[in-house]
């Protein structure tokens, strides 16, 4: 019974934890401009993140080593360092976007300028990382993030023609008014948002934090294969709401308020309040995850003690790295660069960095000396290889598409 409860809790946490500022913005943006014609990309991204999160969770459970530990081991110190620097840039950019996102959500709730919230949010992020147990941190923000279920509720209240909705998902049709390159650019952004690399750093390091062993692989699979797709469903609901309310009105998403607007229209004030709670929880949770991920990746590369399962003084360098990353992220938000724009760039650069993370995971999950009986099966390998191909194409296309479309203008 207790085990069942913990599995259930894990699934709920995965649902709430899947959505972050990148998913919120990208899905609303894409929905408002392209209707449901890009939902297939989100579906593809969810399949990809499930595949590689399962692999990295399995690797972490069997070897008790985090992802970057293995990246350095497989790629060597040179390529490993290049990978570390690139991944860190993307993760800190995402960290910046998440902190900006929390502040924007608080502005939405209070009408106080978001910049005033930034130092408070930053301090809160640090305090939680410094003091709260890993399990508590993961569960509280994952569960609060479930408030985003208000989006599927809003969709239901909007009472769309479900048949047409499903048809436009299954048989996607690019709107005639949009260029193919813009369509593809938003596709890349959605893919990057769904497969953001920090999710894998966090997931595998979290498995070590919680002292998983090979026995926990089954639990991990349930979390991943049920939780992430349901989280993906939230993303699709956000896109669908935007497609139904914002697209006909010709509204392009440029603020977090516009992401929540369809909920206000369909469910009213109370619904909007719940949506804002969901925004705060999802972005704050993701801020914790990205912040911890900066520490995880550097400490794992250099072999330092890391993690919240030891006292802060026993992982001194790890905590200093997290603190420095936090200061950098706060400074970036305080430059008054629009957090929504920062988010857009962070997910596109995530897409560029994808192969750096996912290739080494695939290699290690295939090493029989390391993995023993838990080595990748044929299905995992076939799918993993196909996805690696997709990931490489997406990564290569991301920057040219960005230049070609002036970042989706």
């Amino acid at each position, binding site marked *: 019974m207790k085990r069942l409860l913990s599995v259930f809790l894990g699934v709920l946490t995965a649902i709430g934890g899947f959505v972050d500022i990148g998913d919120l913005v990208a899905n609303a943006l894409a929905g408002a401009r392209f209707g449901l014609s890009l939902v297939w990309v989100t579906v593809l991204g969810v399949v990809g993140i499930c595949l590689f999160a399962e692999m990295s969770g399995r690797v972490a459970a*069997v*070897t*008790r*080593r985090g992802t970057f*530990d293995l990246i*350095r*081991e497989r790629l*060597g*110190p*040179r390529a*490993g*360092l290049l990978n570390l620097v690139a991944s860190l840039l993307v993760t800190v950019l995402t960290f910046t976007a998440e902190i900006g996102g929390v502040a924007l959500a608080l502005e939405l709730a209070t009408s106080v300028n978001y910049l005033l919230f930034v130092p408070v949010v930053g301090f809160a992020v640090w305090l939680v990382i*410094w*003091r*709260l*147990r*890993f399990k*508590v941190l993961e569960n509280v923000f994952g569960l609060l993030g479930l408030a985003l279920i208000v989006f599927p509720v809003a969709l239901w209240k909007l009472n769309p023609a479900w048949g047409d909705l499903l048809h436009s998902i299954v048989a996607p049709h690019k709107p005639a008014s949009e260029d193919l390159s813009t369509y593809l650019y938003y596709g890349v952004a959605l893919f990057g948002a769904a497969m953001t690399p920090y999710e894998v750093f966090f997931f595998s390091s979290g498995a070590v934090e919680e002292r998983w062993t090979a026995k926990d692989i089954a639990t991990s699979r349930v979390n991943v294969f049920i939780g992430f797709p349901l989280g993906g469903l939230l993303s699709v609901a956000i896109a669908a709401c935007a497609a139904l309310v914002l697209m006909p009105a010709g509204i392009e998403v440029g603020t977090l308020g516009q992401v929540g607007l369809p909920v206000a229209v369909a469910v009213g004030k109370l619904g909007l309040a719940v949506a804002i709670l969901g925004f705060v929880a999802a972005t704050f949770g993701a801020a914790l995850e990205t912040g911890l991920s900066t520490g995880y990746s550097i*400490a*794992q*590369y*250099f*072999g*330092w*003690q*890391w993690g*919240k399962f*030891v*006292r*802060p*003084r*026993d992982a*001194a*360098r790890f*905590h*200093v790295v997290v603190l420095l990353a936090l200061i950098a992220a706060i400074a970036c938000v305080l430059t008054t660069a629009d957090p929504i724009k920062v988010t857009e760039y962070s997910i596109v650069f995530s897409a560029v960095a994808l192969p750096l993370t996912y290739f080494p995971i695939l290699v290690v999950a295939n090493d029989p*000396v*390391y993995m023993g009986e838990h080595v990748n099966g044929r299905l995992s390998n076939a799918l993993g290889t196909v996805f690696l191909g997709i990931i490489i194409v997406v990564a290569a296309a991301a920057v040219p598409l960005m230049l070609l479309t002036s970042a989706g203008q």
Partner: protein
Amino acid sequence: MTDESFDDMTDESFDLRLRLLDRQVVDPDGAMICKVDDVELAPADGGGYVVTALLAGPLALGPRLPGRLGRWTVALARRWSDDPEPSPRRIPFERVTELGSAVVLDRSRDQLGIAGLEDWVRTHVIDRIPGSRHASE
């Protein structure tokens, strides 16, 4: 040194780069100490080489990094060292009890006396923040 698989590994030649270099080094309780940044080799009696020590720290890692970055790493590490003749941190291979997904030693980091930056950061930064000695709640 009772682990059978470990004996197997020392008898046969094995891929140093794949199975030892850049592995995580941990103490008997699993606390993380460092990476195997480099190894010290000595000629073996029957030809070939044996690993005599694991090397760690910027002075071991630096030479394995490319070009200027590697030289700067070494130069900085030399400058910051109190030692007039700085050398990489050295862990004799006798300390190794197991080679698996991590390299397990029979001593803790404090017992080995290879503290360095971690201790500096601990005393000068982390210990000054309230709550550094408490486990998370």
